């Protein structure tokens, strides 16, 4: 799915409608910080998952909560960046470039949102009982989800932000 979106981006990114391109809009240091926030989230989800396997309930909960918070931080940063553009008139309606940019970032952010939600969905029962095998399975999947989210972001950061700003 992301391949299809990236294909669309590759094709449409030059359709700027006499408006701004990536070079004009991207704040690279800001995007770098976003990248590190998400990288930490991928790391903490991995650490949390190891504690789940070792059935260390409190540490597992802690690290997955940190993951969720980092994810929220990431989303907030994106929200701030993008709403600033929208206020300046550069929303997805303006040009094909902006449309495809918002589509990729939006789809990714949508997945981050659900990853955060699912941290809470899986974590809440653990406040009340011990870790079961089902929990291990589910949290492993969630951890993989978080790590894939970061890998996709690496592609977005490099291809969309860095190369786009060259």
């Amino acid at each position: 799915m992301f391949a299809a979106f990236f294909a669309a981006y590759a094709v449409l990114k030059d359709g700027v409608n006499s408006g701004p391109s990536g070079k004009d809009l991207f704040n690279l240091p800001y995007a770098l910080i976003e990248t590190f926030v998400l990288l930490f989230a991928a790391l903490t989800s991995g650490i949390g998952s190891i504690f789940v396997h070792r059935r260390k309930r409190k540490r597992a909960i802690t690290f997955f909560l940190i993951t969720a918070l980092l994810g929220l931080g990431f989303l907030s940063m994106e929200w701030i960046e993008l709403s600033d553009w929208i206020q300046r008139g550069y929303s997805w309606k303006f040009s094909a470039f902006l449309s495809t940019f918002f589509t990729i970032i939006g789809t990714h952010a949508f997945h981050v949102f659900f990853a955060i939600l699912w941290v809470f969905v899986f974590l809440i029962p653990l406040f009340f009982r011990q870790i079961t095998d089902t929990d291990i399975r589910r949290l492993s999947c969630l951890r993989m989800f978080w790590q894939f989210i970061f890998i996709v972001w690496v592609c977005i950061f490099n291809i969309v932000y860095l190369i786009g700003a060259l």
Partner: protein
Amino acid sequence: MIDVSHKWNSSFKPLILGFIAAVILTIFSYLASSMLLIATLAVIECVVLLVTFLGLGLEAKPRWNLLAFFFMLAVTIILIGGSVWIMNHLNYNMMPMDMQMHKQMKGSL
């Protein structure tokens, strides 16, 4: 479903390794100024993350995950590469241009 007994699953080392590698690669990518370099670093970073964080290629045989990954990679490259190739050709052939620009671009194919 997942090979829960895998030693890799219970060790922090690969995670830390992958994390540090990712930090370094990200910073290099940030500082790079050539498209090729950025793209290469991105690929390396993705591979490092896939192996250290997600354990791709470390499973016992039969290595279904690895096979699935390669198929996905193939489809991704075909889809993106193919689309760019096709759309570039379409854009060249179907775009209304004046004669000058047309002659200019004729060389690129």
